[in-house]
């Protein structure tokens, strides 16, 4: 499968990635990702009919533990790295606008 990586696709991926790119970065990533995707595209030559995917090398699925109360670091340890806090909350810009609130 060959896909052309153009600037509009790069802007779309940047939006999905939550990366606010400059025009210069968009131009740079368009050319770099084109080269990289052109290279990784060689996987299409490999016959993988009847081959199951390996997401993980270990034969481990769900690992459960007993549902027991154990000590945790506590709010001060966790909030200590907060860029902005208010009391014991992480402070963020408003998520909902006036109309949807």
């Amino acid at each position, binding site marked *: *499968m060959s*896909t052309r990586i153009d600037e509009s*696709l*790069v802007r779309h*991926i*940047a939006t*999905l*990635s*939550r*990366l*606010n*790119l*400059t025009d210069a*970065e968009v131009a*740079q*990533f368009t050319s*770099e*990702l084109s*080269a*990289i*995707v052109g*290279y*990784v*595209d*060689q*996987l*299409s030559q*490999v016959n*993988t009919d009847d*081959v*199951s*995917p*390996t*997401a*993980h*090398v*270990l034969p*481990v699925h769900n*690992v459960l*533990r007993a549902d027991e109360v154990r000590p945790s*670091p506590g709010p001060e*340890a*966790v909030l*200590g*790295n*907060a*860029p*902005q806090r208010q009391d014991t909350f*992480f402070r*963020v*810009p*408003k*998520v909902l606008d006036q109309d949807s609130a």
Partner: protein
Amino acid sequence: MTLAATARAIRQRKQSAEAAVQASLDAIARWNGTFGAFLRVEADRAATRARAVDAAIARGDDVGPLAGVPVAVKDNLCTTFGTTACASRILADFHSPYSAHAVDRLEAAGAVVVGKTNMDEFAMGSSTETSALATTRNPWDAERVPGGSSGGSAAAVALGLVDGALGSDTGGSIRQPASFCGVVGLKPTYGRVSRYGLVAFASSLDQIGPFARTAEDAALLLGVIAGHDPRDSTSVDRPVPDYVGGLDRPLKGLRIGIAAEYFGEGLDDEVRKGVEGALAVLQEHGAEVQEVHLPHTRYAIACYYLVATAEASSNLARYDGVHYGYRAPGIDDVIEMYSASRRDGFGPEVKRRIMLGTYALSSGYYDAFYLKALKVRTLLRRDFEQAFQTVDVIASPVTPTTAFRLGEKTGDPLAMYLADVYTTSVNLAGIPAISVPCGFDSAGTPIGLQLMGPAFGEEVLLATAHQYQRVTDHHLRRPPVEANG
């Protein structure tokens, strides 16, 4: 001195822990300005801990196998002291509320962590040049890269600033810098060492492992950090062998495989000769060399850069400026705040990989790229499973060339990726591999031999490396730092 010798001298009270740690701190003060191996040094804490070890020894307490030995850890291993920044602006001021399992195990064994080492940002790179915080130089030639992403740990050991260090290896990030800096580096089997407290890059590939100058020291360190930890659900509950005790396994009868796919086009002639020379030594001492085939090797880099970036794009979604890390100031819209924080906080290589991974996972491309890569990963695993039916270890170069120059590949990301040709398959297959110094090129830069083993085959890798070091002296050469510095 080796780490094992220092540990013995301290236990036998021939040297104090305080003196050993002070010697390390002095060496760091002397050389770190030139070579940039450490991002941060914890001098006061280290000296205090060393004095506590000396006091414990004086009382006759059981102090552990690494008591008083100075060690370094990569900046993506969480520590409750100092910062854990992953050499990134986005985590520059991050203070971890907990410490990594491997760090806890080191300190429980008595080791003294003297500082955090430089790395490629979030371990994404092969030269330590993507670090947002510092430049690390190769101890053998300050104009060359130390390799990466664990370049600071490799350089610290090569310079003798510490005798042991921890790194992480997602696609070669322990073995390649070990090779470039002329030290031993071991990437354990996936699941052998708990990843708890290792900042995630690609969770199905990441593994923590040791750097040292000798295989014996690497065995000692692995024995300390390996083992089951319920806090990492992929940590395997399986007994940890006595790695040091297993080093005596002789080379006689050892079956070493070599694969033509690891000696093809692009391999530098001097590296080839260095590796062939090492194979001749191993044969001379009783090992048998035979050919094996790893036919899907040519697809490893493409497979790796899809799987690793897909996982990275998901793992790094957590850096949104909400709970910790950098937040772009003065933005009212929450999505804008995420996007601006990530734009300003991440460097170009991290952005590039998030973009590639997001693309490979996105609607319309998932089957062709991500799912296809997972299927090729199965084929790469099968190649190794078949090869290990007939051999005990597989030998190859670690890298196609010796250390390249600073700046040489930074303008061409694909060229940087292609240099990982011999290391990425091991991570995709989940198997262990070790890098051992096996000579020098005509410029005096080190060449590494890679030994790959079956899952949980660390013992045979360490024993083979140890037996090789018993009859060779490449690991005893020291970088000409006086000339460089």
